[in-house]
Protein backbone atom coordinates (compact mmCIF):
# COMPACT_ATOMS: atom_id res chain seq x y z
CA UNK A 1 0.00 0.00 0.00
CA UNK A 2 1.10 3.51 -0.84
CA UNK A 3 0.64 4.91 2.66
CA UNK A 4 2.56 6.15 5.64
CA UNK A 5 0.67 4.51 8.51
CA UNK A 6 -2.95 3.39 8.63
CA UNK A 7 -3.82 6.00 11.25
CA UNK A 8 -3.02 9.00 9.03
CA UNK A 9 -4.39 7.75 5.71
CA UNK A 10 -7.46 10.01 5.67
CA UNK A 11 -5.67 13.11 6.92
CA UNK A 12 -2.86 12.56 4.41
CA UNK A 13 -5.35 12.25 1.58
CA UNK A 14 -7.11 15.44 2.62
CA UNK A 15 -3.83 17.34 2.62
CA UNK A 16 -3.14 16.00 -0.85
CA UNK A 17 -6.61 16.97 -2.00
CA UNK A 18 -6.16 20.47 -0.68
CA UNK A 19 -2.92 20.83 -2.64
CA UNK A 20 -4.50 19.55 -5.87
CA UNK A 21 -7.77 21.46 -5.74
CA UNK A 22 -7.54 25.12 -4.86
CA UNK A 23 -11.26 25.44 -5.65
CA UNK A 24 -12.02 23.42 -2.51
CA UNK A 25 -11.72 24.44 1.10
CA UNK A 26 -10.34 21.42 2.89
CA UNK A 27 -10.45 21.45 6.68
CA UNK A 28 -8.03 18.62 7.37
CA UNK A 29 -8.35 18.71 11.14
CA UNK A 30 -12.14 18.59 11.17
CA UNK A 31 -12.40 16.49 8.02
CA UNK A 32 -14.74 18.59 5.98
CA UNK A 33 -14.39 19.38 2.28
CA UNK A 34 -16.39 22.43 1.22
CA UNK A 35 -16.75 24.24 -2.09
CA UNK A 36 -14.87 27.47 -1.79
CA UNK A 37 -17.83 29.77 -2.52
CA UNK A 38 -20.13 28.23 0.13
CA UNK A 39 -22.61 29.22 1.41
CA UNK A 40 -24.10 30.12 -1.97
CA UNK A 41 -26.80 32.72 -1.40
CA UNK A 42 -30.38 31.42 -1.57
CA UNK A 43 -29.28 27.91 -2.49
CA UNK A 44 -30.12 24.76 -0.58
CA UNK A 45 -26.91 23.08 0.57
CA UNK A 46 -26.11 19.41 -0.08
CA UNK A 47 -23.94 17.56 2.40
CA UNK A 48 -22.88 13.98 1.99
CA UNK A 49 -20.23 11.78 3.46
CA UNK A 50 -19.41 8.29 4.49
CA UNK A 51 -16.43 6.11 5.09
CA UNK A 52 -13.28 6.86 3.10
CA UNK A 53 -12.03 4.39 0.53
CA UNK A 54 -14.74 5.09 -2.05
CA UNK A 55 -13.00 7.97 -3.78
CA UNK A 56 -13.78 10.05 -5.76
CA UNK A 57 -17.05 9.69 -3.79
CA UNK A 58 -17.73 12.08 -1.97
CA UNK A 59 -14.96 14.70 -1.88
CA UNK A 60 -14.46 14.48 -5.63
CA UNK A 61 -18.09 15.48 -6.11
CA UNK A 62 -17.90 18.76 -4.20
CA UNK A 63 -18.31 21.86 -6.33
CA UNK A 64 -20.74 23.90 -8.38
CA UNK A 65 -23.57 21.71 -9.60
CA UNK A 66 -23.04 18.94 -7.07
CA UNK A 67 -22.21 18.69 -3.35
CA UNK A 68 -21.72 21.73 -1.15
CA UNK A 69 -19.65 19.71 1.29
CA UNK A 70 -18.45 16.20 2.01
CA UNK A 71 -17.50 14.55 5.30
CA UNK A 72 -15.01 11.70 4.95
CA UNK A 73 -14.89 9.20 7.78
CA UNK A 74 -12.14 6.73 8.54
CA UNK A 75 -11.70 4.07 5.88
CA UNK A 76 -15.03 2.23 5.50
CA UNK A 77 -16.32 3.87 8.70
CA UNK A 78 -19.06 6.44 8.67
CA UNK A 79 -17.98 9.94 9.70
CA UNK A 80 -18.91 11.31 13.12
CA UNK A 81 -21.76 13.78 13.71
CA UNK A 82 -19.39 16.65 14.49
CA UNK A 83 -18.29 16.63 10.85
CA UNK A 84 -21.77 16.85 9.39
CA UNK A 85 -22.80 19.55 11.85
CA UNK A 86 -19.80 21.64 10.90
CA UNK A 87 -20.40 21.06 7.19
CA UNK A 88 -24.08 21.94 7.48
CA UNK A 89 -23.33 25.15 9.33
CA UNK A 90 -20.71 26.06 6.74
CA UNK A 91 -22.91 25.65 3.68
CA UNK A 92 -26.32 26.75 4.94
CA UNK A 93 -27.46 29.96 3.27
CA UNK A 94 -30.66 29.93 5.31
CA UNK A 95 -32.40 27.70 2.77
CA UNK A 96 -31.55 24.54 4.66
CA UNK A 97 -29.37 21.54 3.95
CA UNK A 98 -30.04 18.10 2.47
CA UNK A 99 -28.08 15.20 3.94
CA UNK A 100 -27.42 12.48 1.38
CA UNK A 101 -26.85 9.30 3.38
CA UNK A 102 -25.97 5.83 2.15
CA UNK A 103 -27.99 3.19 3.92
CA UNK A 104 -25.58 1.66 6.39
CA UNK A 105 -26.39 1.48 10.07
CA UNK A 106 -23.41 3.63 10.97
CA UNK A 107 -24.07 6.29 8.36
CA UNK A 108 -27.75 6.52 9.23
CA UNK A 109 -27.08 6.73 12.98
CA UNK A 110 -24.38 9.36 12.69
CA UNK A 111 -26.26 11.52 10.19
CA UNK A 112 -29.37 11.30 12.37
CA UNK A 113 -27.48 12.55 15.39
CA UNK A 114 -25.96 15.29 13.25
CA UNK A 115 -29.39 16.33 11.97
CA UNK A 116 -30.64 16.70 15.54
CA UNK A 117 -27.62 18.76 16.53
CA UNK A 118 -27.65 20.92 13.40
CA UNK A 119 -31.33 21.67 13.90
CA UNK A 120 -30.50 22.70 17.45
CA UNK A 121 -28.14 25.19 15.87
CA UNK A 122 -30.90 26.52 13.66
CA UNK A 123 -30.10 24.75 10.39
CA UNK A 124 -33.07 23.18 8.66
CA UNK A 125 -32.11 19.64 7.64
CA UNK A 126 -33.75 17.14 5.34
CA UNK A 127 -32.36 13.71 4.70
CA UNK A 128 -32.44 11.15 1.94
CA UNK A 129 -31.20 7.62 2.49
CA UNK A 130 -29.83 5.96 -0.64
CA UNK A 131 -30.54 2.23 -0.83
CA UNK A 132 -30.14 0.95 -4.37
CA UNK A 133 -28.27 -2.34 -4.06
CA UNK A 134 -30.55 -5.18 -5.15
CA UNK A 135 -28.04 -7.79 -4.01
CA UNK A 136 -29.36 -7.26 -0.50
CA UNK A 137 -32.97 -8.21 -0.10
CA UNK A 138 -35.05 -5.53 1.50
CA UNK A 139 -36.77 -6.89 4.57
CA UNK A 140 -38.05 -5.75 7.91
CA UNK A 141 -35.54 -8.02 9.54
CA UNK A 142 -32.42 -6.63 7.97
CA UNK A 143 -30.87 -3.21 7.74
CA UNK A 144 -32.31 -2.96 4.23
CA UNK A 145 -30.63 -2.49 0.90
CA UNK A 146 -27.20 -0.89 0.83
CA UNK A 147 -26.45 2.45 -0.78
CA UNK A 148 -23.92 2.23 -3.60
CA UNK A 149 -23.73 3.64 -7.14
CA UNK A 150 -27.05 5.49 -7.07
CA UNK A 151 -25.45 7.94 -4.66
CA UNK A 152 -23.76 9.57 -7.63
CA UNK A 153 -27.08 10.00 -9.45
CA UNK A 154 -28.82 11.32 -6.33
CA UNK A 155 -26.06 13.82 -5.54
CA UNK A 156 -25.78 15.10 -9.11
CA UNK A 157 -29.46 15.42 -9.90
CA UNK A 158 -30.67 16.77 -6.56
CA UNK A 159 -27.83 19.30 -6.59
CA UNK A 160 -28.85 20.49 -10.03
CA UNK A 161 -32.33 21.17 -8.65
CA UNK A 162 -30.80 23.08 -5.75
CA UNK A 163 -28.64 25.03 -8.19
CA UNK A 164 -31.82 26.10 -9.99
CA UNK A 165 -33.20 27.50 -6.75
CA UNK A 166 -35.55 24.69 -5.70
CA UNK A 167 -36.50 24.82 -2.01
CA UNK A 168 -35.36 22.20 0.50
CA UNK A 169 -38.45 19.99 0.34
CA UNK A 170 -38.34 19.95 -3.44
CA UNK A 171 -34.61 19.11 -3.51
CA UNK A 172 -35.27 16.30 -1.04
CA UNK A 173 -38.18 15.05 -3.14
CA UNK A 174 -36.02 14.98 -6.27
CA UNK A 175 -33.33 13.10 -4.36
CA UNK A 176 -35.86 10.53 -3.19
CA UNK A 177 -37.28 10.17 -6.68
CA UNK A 178 -33.81 9.48 -8.05
CA UNK A 179 -33.14 6.94 -5.34
CA UNK A 180 -36.43 5.18 -5.95
CA UNK A 181 -35.71 5.12 -9.67
CA UNK A 182 -32.25 3.56 -9.23
CA UNK A 183 -30.96 0.07 -8.64
CA UNK A 184 -27.45 -1.42 -8.58
CA UNK A 185 -25.63 -4.72 -8.51
CA UNK A 186 -21.91 -5.31 -8.00
CA UNK A 187 -19.37 -8.01 -8.67
CA UNK A 188 -15.89 -8.50 -7.23
CA UNK A 189 -12.97 -10.12 -9.03
CA UNK A 190 -10.69 -9.60 -6.04
CA UNK A 191 -11.09 -8.76 -2.37
CA UNK A 192 -10.18 -5.42 -0.86
CA UNK A 193 -7.29 -4.67 1.49
CA UNK A 194 -7.84 -1.94 4.05
CA UNK A 195 -4.88 -0.03 5.50
CA UNK A 196 -5.90 -0.98 9.06
CA UNK A 197 -6.05 -4.69 8.33
CA UNK A 198 -3.31 -4.90 5.72
CA UNK A 199 -4.58 -8.13 4.18
CA UNK A 200 -7.61 -8.93 2.00
CA UNK A 201 -10.94 -8.83 3.85
CA UNK A 202 -12.01 -12.06 2.25
CA UNK A 203 -10.34 -14.81 0.35
CA UNK A 204 -11.16 -14.78 -3.33
CA UNK A 205 -8.96 -17.15 -5.32
CA UNK A 206 -8.13 -16.03 -8.85
CA UNK A 207 -10.52 -17.69 -11.21
CA UNK A 208 -13.53 -17.09 -8.99
CA UNK A 209 -15.81 -14.14 -8.57
CA UNK A 210 -18.12 -12.95 -5.89
CA UNK A 211 -21.57 -11.78 -6.92
CA UNK A 212 -23.53 -9.17 -5.04
CA UNK A 213 -20.68 -7.52 -3.17
CA UNK A 214 -20.91 -4.19 -1.43
CA UNK A 215 -18.37 -1.39 -1.44
CA UNK A 216 -16.74 -2.21 1.89
CA UNK A 217 -15.22 -5.56 1.17
CA UNK A 218 -18.27 -7.27 2.57
CA UNK A 219 -18.28 -10.67 0.91
CA UNK A 220 -21.07 -11.15 -1.62
CA UNK A 221 -24.02 -13.48 -1.55
CA UNK A 222 -22.62 -16.06 -3.88
CA UNK A 223 -19.34 -17.24 -5.32
CA UNK A 224 -18.91 -18.60 -8.83
CA UNK A 225 -16.18 -19.71 -11.19
CA UNK A 226 -14.98 -16.85 -13.37
CA UNK A 227 -17.43 -15.70 -16.03
CA UNK A 228 -16.79 -13.72 -19.21
CA UNK A 229 -17.52 -10.03 -19.36
CA UNK A 230 -20.60 -10.82 -21.43
CA UNK A 231 -21.91 -13.40 -18.96
CA UNK A 232 -21.35 -11.03 -16.07
CA UNK A 233 -23.24 -8.30 -17.92
CA UNK A 234 -26.16 -10.66 -18.50
CA UNK A 235 -26.27 -11.59 -14.84
CA UNK A 236 -25.81 -8.11 -13.40
CA UNK A 237 -28.13 -6.23 -15.75
CA UNK A 238 -30.84 -8.82 -15.37
CA UNK A 239 -30.56 -8.64 -11.57
CA UNK A 240 -31.05 -4.88 -11.74
CA UNK A 241 -33.85 -4.98 -14.32
CA UNK A 242 -35.77 -7.61 -12.40
CA UNK A 243 -36.06 -5.21 -9.51
CA UNK A 244 -36.36 -1.92 -11.40
CA UNK A 245 -38.53 -2.90 -14.38
CA UNK A 246 -37.96 0.43 -16.13
CA UNK A 247 -40.54 1.82 -18.48
CA UNK A 248 -38.58 4.93 -19.39
CA UNK A 249 -35.02 5.50 -20.65
CA UNK A 250 -32.23 4.95 -18.14
CA UNK A 251 -29.01 6.56 -17.08
CA UNK A 252 -26.31 3.89 -16.97
CA UNK A 253 -23.39 3.94 -14.58
CA UNK A 254 -20.77 1.31 -15.38
CA UNK A 255 -18.68 1.70 -12.31
CA UNK A 256 -15.26 0.27 -11.52
CA UNK A 257 -14.52 -0.82 -7.96
CA UNK A 258 -11.08 0.78 -8.01
CA UNK A 259 -8.61 -1.64 -9.53
CA UNK A 260 -10.41 -2.58 -12.72
CA UNK A 261 -8.64 -1.11 -15.75
CA UNK A 262 -10.64 1.38 -17.76
CA UNK A 263 -9.96 -0.80 -20.80
CA UNK A 264 -11.91 -3.62 -19.19
CA UNK A 265 -14.65 -1.31 -17.94
CA UNK A 266 -15.27 0.04 -21.42
CA UNK A 267 -15.39 -3.49 -22.78
CA UNK A 268 -17.84 -4.40 -20.04
CA UNK A 269 -19.92 -1.37 -20.97
CA UNK A 270 -20.24 -2.72 -24.50
CA UNK A 271 -21.75 -5.89 -23.02
CA UNK A 272 -24.05 -3.96 -20.70
CA UNK A 273 -25.38 -1.97 -23.64
CA UNK A 274 -25.91 -5.19 -25.57
CA UNK A 275 -28.00 -6.67 -22.76
CA UNK A 276 -30.02 -3.48 -22.29
CA UNK A 277 -30.83 -3.19 -25.95
CA UNK A 278 -31.74 -6.88 -26.02
CA UNK A 279 -34.19 -6.25 -23.17
CA UNK A 280 -35.67 -3.26 -24.98
CA UNK A 281 -34.38 -0.70 -22.47
CA UNK A 282 -33.51 2.69 -23.99
CA UNK A 283 -30.30 4.30 -22.76
CA UNK A 284 -30.35 8.06 -22.25
CA UNK A 285 -26.79 8.60 -20.97
CA UNK A 286 -23.85 6.39 -20.00
CA UNK A 287 -21.07 7.10 -17.55
CA UNK A 288 -18.09 4.72 -17.38
CA UNK A 289 -15.37 4.97 -14.77
CA UNK A 290 -14.16 4.40 -11.22
CA UNK A 291 -16.60 6.59 -9.29
CA UNK A 292 -17.91 4.65 -6.30
CA UNK A 293 -14.97 2.49 -5.43
CA UNK A 294 -13.78 0.11 -2.81
CA UNK A 295 -10.08 0.85 -2.45
CA UNK A 296 -8.11 -1.68 -4.49
CA UNK A 297 -10.96 -4.05 -5.26
CA UNK A 298 -11.18 -5.33 -8.82
CA UNK A 299 -14.70 -5.59 -10.11
CA UNK A 300 -17.57 -3.50 -11.27
CA UNK A 301 -21.12 -2.51 -10.60
CA UNK A 302 -23.96 -1.39 -12.78
CA UNK A 303 -26.46 1.23 -11.67
CA UNK A 304 -29.52 2.08 -13.73
CA UNK A 305 -31.69 5.11 -13.04
CA UNK A 306 -34.83 5.59 -15.01
CA UNK A 307 -35.44 9.20 -15.85
CA UNK A 308 -38.16 11.47 -17.10
CA UNK A 309 -37.35 14.62 -19.04
CA UNK A 310 -36.95 16.66 -15.90
CA UNK A 311 -34.42 14.31 -14.30
CA UNK A 312 -32.52 14.03 -17.56
CA UNK A 313 -32.35 17.81 -17.85
CA UNK A 314 -31.00 18.01 -14.30
CA UNK A 315 -28.47 15.26 -15.04
CA UNK A 316 -27.24 17.20 -18.06
CA UNK A 317 -26.95 20.46 -16.13
CA UNK A 318 -23.40 21.79 -15.68
CA UNK A 319 -21.23 20.30 -12.98
CA UNK A 320 -17.75 21.33 -11.96
CA UNK A 321 -16.09 19.06 -9.45
CA UNK A 322 -12.79 17.23 -9.23
CA UNK A 323 -14.22 13.99 -10.59
CA UNK A 324 -17.28 14.97 -12.61
CA UNK A 325 -17.34 17.90 -14.96
CA UNK A 326 -19.41 18.92 -17.89
CA UNK A 327 -21.59 21.65 -19.28
CA UNK A 328 -20.73 25.19 -18.55
Amino acid at each position, binding site marked *: MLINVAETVVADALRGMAAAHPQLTVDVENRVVVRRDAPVADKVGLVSGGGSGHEPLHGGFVGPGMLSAACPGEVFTSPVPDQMVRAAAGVDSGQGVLFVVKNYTGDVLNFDMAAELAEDEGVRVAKVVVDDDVAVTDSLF*TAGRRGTGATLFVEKIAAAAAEEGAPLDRVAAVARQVNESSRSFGVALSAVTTP*AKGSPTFDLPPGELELGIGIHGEPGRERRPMMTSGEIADFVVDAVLEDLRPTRPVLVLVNGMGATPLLELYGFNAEVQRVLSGRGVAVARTLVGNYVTSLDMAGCSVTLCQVDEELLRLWDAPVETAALRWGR
Partner: protein
Amino acid sequence: MLVLDAEFFRRWMSAAAAAVDREAGRLTELDSAIGDADHGSNLQRGFAAVAAVLDKEQPAAPGAVLALAGRQLISTVGGASGPLYGTLLRRTGKALGDEAEVTPERLAEALRAGRRRGGAAGRGEGRGQDDAGRADPGGRRARRVAVVRRGADGGGRGGARDRTLQARKGRASYLGERSIGHQDPGATSSALLIGALADTADSTEGAA
Protein backbone atom coordinates in the same frame (compact mmCIF):
# COMPACT_ATOMS: atom_id res chain seq x y z
CA MET B 1 -21.54 -3.13 50.08
CA LEU B 2 -19.86 -2.05 46.85
CA VAL B 3 -20.27 1.65 46.13
CA LEU B 4 -19.07 3.06 42.83
CA ASP B 5 -17.50 6.50 42.52
CA ALA B 6 -16.08 8.51 39.62
CA GLU B 7 -12.71 6.88 40.13
CA PHE B 8 -14.35 3.46 39.68
CA PHE B 9 -15.85 4.50 36.35
CA ARG B 10 -12.58 6.01 35.19
CA ARG B 11 -10.87 2.74 36.00
CA TRP B 12 -13.58 0.84 34.11
CA MET B 13 -13.09 2.99 31.05
CA SER B 14 -9.34 2.64 31.19
CA ALA B 15 -9.62 -1.14 31.62
CA ALA B 16 -11.98 -1.11 28.64
CA ALA B 17 -9.48 0.88 26.61
CA ALA B 18 -6.73 -1.61 27.49
CA ALA B 19 -8.92 -4.61 26.62
CA VAL B 20 -9.98 -3.11 23.29
CA ASP B 21 -6.41 -2.24 22.47
CA ARG B 22 -5.27 -5.76 23.24
CA GLU B 23 -8.06 -7.42 21.27
CA ALA B 24 -8.31 -4.94 18.37
CA GLY B 25 -6.79 -7.34 15.88
CA ARG B 26 -9.25 -10.07 16.78
CA LEU B 27 -12.24 -7.73 16.59
CA THR B 28 -11.17 -6.54 13.16
CA GLU B 29 -10.60 -10.10 12.07
CA LEU B 30 -14.14 -11.06 13.14
CA ASP B 31 -15.50 -7.98 11.35
CA SER B 32 -13.62 -8.90 8.23
CA ALA B 33 -15.37 -12.27 8.01
CA ILE B 34 -18.85 -10.77 8.07
CA GLY B 35 -18.39 -7.00 7.86
CA ASP B 36 -15.86 -4.44 6.75
CA ALA B 37 -12.80 -5.17 8.86
CA ASP B 38 -12.77 -2.09 11.07
CA HIS B 39 -14.47 -2.86 14.35
CA GLY B 40 -11.18 -3.24 16.22
CA SER B 41 -9.60 -0.08 14.90
CA ASN B 42 -12.87 1.80 15.41
CA LEU B 43 -13.06 0.99 19.10
CA GLN B 44 -9.34 1.31 19.60
CA ARG B 45 -9.45 4.87 18.28
CA GLY B 46 -12.55 5.64 20.34
CA PHE B 47 -11.46 4.25 23.68
CA ALA B 48 -8.00 5.76 23.37
CA ALA B 49 -9.74 9.12 22.98
CA VAL B 50 -12.01 8.32 25.94
CA ALA B 51 -9.05 7.50 28.17
CA ALA B 52 -7.31 10.70 27.09
CA VAL B 53 -10.27 12.98 27.70
CA LEU B 54 -11.08 11.43 31.09
CA ASP B 55 -7.47 11.84 32.09
CA LYS B 56 -7.55 15.46 31.08
CA GLU B 57 -10.94 16.50 32.41
CA GLN B 58 -11.20 14.24 35.47
CA PRO B 59 -14.98 14.48 35.83
CA ALA B 60 -16.02 14.19 39.49
CA ALA B 61 -19.27 12.21 39.26
CA PRO B 62 -20.02 8.76 37.79
CA GLY B 63 -22.71 10.21 35.52
CA ALA B 64 -20.30 12.83 34.20
CA VAL B 65 -17.65 10.19 33.49
CA LEU B 66 -20.01 8.06 31.41
CA ALA B 67 -21.61 11.02 29.63
CA LEU B 68 -18.22 12.40 28.66
CA ALA B 69 -17.01 8.97 27.56
CA GLY B 70 -20.15 8.53 25.46
CA ARG B 71 -19.78 11.93 23.82
CA GLN B 72 -16.19 11.16 23.05
CA LEU B 73 -17.09 7.83 21.43
CA ILE B 74 -19.72 9.58 19.31
CA SER B 75 -17.16 12.18 18.21
CA THR B 76 -14.32 9.83 17.39
CA VAL B 77 -15.58 6.36 16.41
CA GLY B 78 -18.15 6.80 13.65
CA GLY B 79 -19.52 3.64 12.08
CA ALA B 80 -22.35 1.73 13.71
CA SER B 81 -20.53 1.06 16.96
CA GLY B 82 -19.74 4.73 17.69
CA PRO B 83 -23.30 5.99 18.03
CA LEU B 84 -24.50 2.73 19.60
CA TYR B 85 -21.90 2.52 22.38
CA GLY B 86 -21.66 6.31 22.60
CA THR B 87 -25.38 6.89 23.00
CA LEU B 88 -25.66 4.08 25.51
CA LEU B 89 -22.91 5.49 27.73
CA ARG B 90 -24.06 9.06 27.35
CA ARG B 91 -27.65 8.24 28.29
CA THR B 92 -26.61 5.93 31.10
CA GLY B 93 -24.48 8.77 32.41
CA LYS B 94 -27.41 11.17 32.15
CA ALA B 95 -29.63 8.72 33.98
CA LEU B 96 -27.09 8.55 36.81
CA GLY B 97 -27.42 12.30 37.34
CA ASP B 98 -24.71 14.08 39.31
CA GLU B 99 -24.53 11.89 42.39
CA ALA B 100 -20.95 11.39 43.62
CA GLU B 101 -21.44 7.66 44.29
CA VAL B 102 -23.86 5.06 42.95
CA THR B 103 -24.77 1.49 43.86
CA PRO B 104 -24.47 -1.37 41.37
CA GLU B 105 -28.27 -1.53 41.33
CA ARG B 106 -28.48 2.12 40.28
CA LEU B 107 -25.96 1.42 37.52
CA ALA B 108 -27.93 -1.58 36.27
CA GLU B 109 -31.09 0.51 36.19
CA ALA B 110 -29.37 3.39 34.40
CA LEU B 111 -27.88 1.01 31.81
CA ARG B 112 -31.34 -0.35 31.12
CA ALA B 113 -32.66 3.19 30.77
CA GLY B 114 -29.78 4.07 28.49
CA ARG B 115 -30.55 1.09 26.38
CA ARG B 116 -34.26 1.83 26.15
CA ARG B 117 -33.48 5.32 24.99
CA GLY B 118 -30.93 3.98 22.51
CA GLY B 119 -33.71 4.32 19.94
CA ALA B 120 -31.56 6.61 17.84
CA ALA B 121 -30.64 3.43 16.07
CA GLY B 122 -34.20 3.29 14.84
CA ARG B 123 -34.49 6.42 12.73
CA GLY B 124 -33.38 4.95 9.46
CA GLU B 125 -36.57 5.49 7.53
CA GLY B 126 -38.26 2.43 8.92
CA ARG B 127 -35.92 0.01 7.19
CA GLY B 128 -35.17 -2.15 10.16
CA GLN B 129 -32.71 -0.13 12.17
CA ASP B 130 -35.59 0.63 14.48
CA ASP B 131 -34.78 -1.61 17.32
CA ALA B 132 -31.65 -2.59 19.06
CA GLY B 133 -31.49 -6.10 17.79
CA ARG B 134 -29.68 -9.30 18.38
CA ALA B 135 -26.24 -7.88 17.99
CA ASP B 136 -26.86 -4.63 19.81
CA PRO B 137 -23.90 -4.10 22.10
CA GLY B 138 -26.11 -2.03 24.38
CA GLY B 139 -28.65 -4.76 24.72
CA ARG B 140 -26.11 -7.38 25.59
CA ARG B 141 -24.41 -5.11 28.00
CA ALA B 142 -27.65 -4.28 29.82
CA ARG B 143 -28.57 -7.91 30.12
CA ARG B 144 -25.16 -8.74 31.44
CA VAL B 145 -24.99 -6.08 34.08
CA ALA B 146 -25.93 -8.84 36.48
CA VAL B 147 -22.47 -10.14 35.84
CA VAL B 148 -20.97 -7.18 37.61
CA ARG B 149 -22.97 -7.69 40.71
CA ARG B 150 -22.05 -11.30 40.89
CA GLY B 151 -18.45 -10.42 40.20
CA ALA B 152 -18.44 -13.14 37.58
CA ASP B 153 -16.30 -13.11 34.52
CA GLY B 154 -18.35 -12.23 31.47
CA GLY B 155 -15.41 -11.53 29.19
CA GLY B 156 -13.91 -13.56 26.44
CA ARG B 157 -16.61 -16.09 25.73
CA GLY B 158 -19.29 -13.56 24.77
CA GLY B 159 -20.58 -13.86 21.27
CA ALA B 160 -19.62 -17.47 20.77
CA ARG B 161 -23.28 -18.40 21.07
CA ASP B 162 -24.01 -16.14 18.07
CA ARG B 163 -22.40 -18.55 15.76
CA THR B 164 -25.58 -20.50 15.28
CA LEU B 165 -27.63 -17.39 14.49
CA GLN B 166 -28.16 -15.55 11.23
CA ALA B 167 -27.29 -11.86 11.41
CA ARG B 168 -30.20 -9.50 10.92
CA LYS B 169 -28.52 -6.21 11.78
CA GLY B 170 -25.49 -4.32 10.57
CA ARG B 171 -23.33 -5.24 7.66
CA ALA B 172 -23.29 -8.91 8.56
CA SER B 173 -26.96 -9.06 7.55
CA TYR B 174 -25.95 -8.64 3.91
CA LEU B 175 -24.39 -12.05 4.09
CA GLY B 176 -27.72 -13.76 4.70
CA GLU B 177 -27.26 -17.40 5.57
CA ARG B 178 -23.53 -17.10 5.07
CA SER B 179 -23.37 -15.20 8.39
CA ILE B 180 -24.30 -18.35 10.29
CA GLY B 181 -21.28 -19.84 11.97
CA HIS B 182 -19.56 -16.49 12.43
CA GLN B 183 -19.04 -14.76 15.73
CA ASP B 184 -20.42 -11.21 15.82
CA PRO B 185 -17.71 -8.59 16.37
CA GLY B 186 -20.02 -6.22 18.30
CA ALA B 187 -21.16 -8.98 20.63
CA THR B 188 -17.53 -9.81 21.21
CA SER B 189 -16.57 -6.23 22.04
CA SER B 190 -19.59 -6.00 24.36
CA ALA B 191 -18.25 -8.98 26.23
CA LEU B 192 -14.87 -7.25 26.48
CA LEU B 193 -16.41 -4.10 27.96
CA ILE B 194 -18.49 -6.10 30.41
CA GLY B 195 -15.42 -8.10 31.29
CA ALA B 196 -13.58 -4.85 32.00
CA LEU B 197 -16.45 -3.77 34.26
CA ALA B 198 -16.40 -7.07 36.10
CA ASP B 199 -12.62 -6.93 36.55
CA THR B 200 -12.86 -3.40 37.84
CA ALA B 201 -15.54 -4.45 40.31
CA ASP B 202 -13.45 -7.44 41.41
CA SER B 203 -10.36 -5.38 42.09
CA THR B 204 -12.45 -2.79 43.90
CA GLU B 205 -14.03 -5.41 46.16
CA GLY B 206 -10.63 -6.91 46.70
CA ALA B 207 -9.25 -3.54 47.75
CA ALA B 208 -12.29 -2.76 49.90
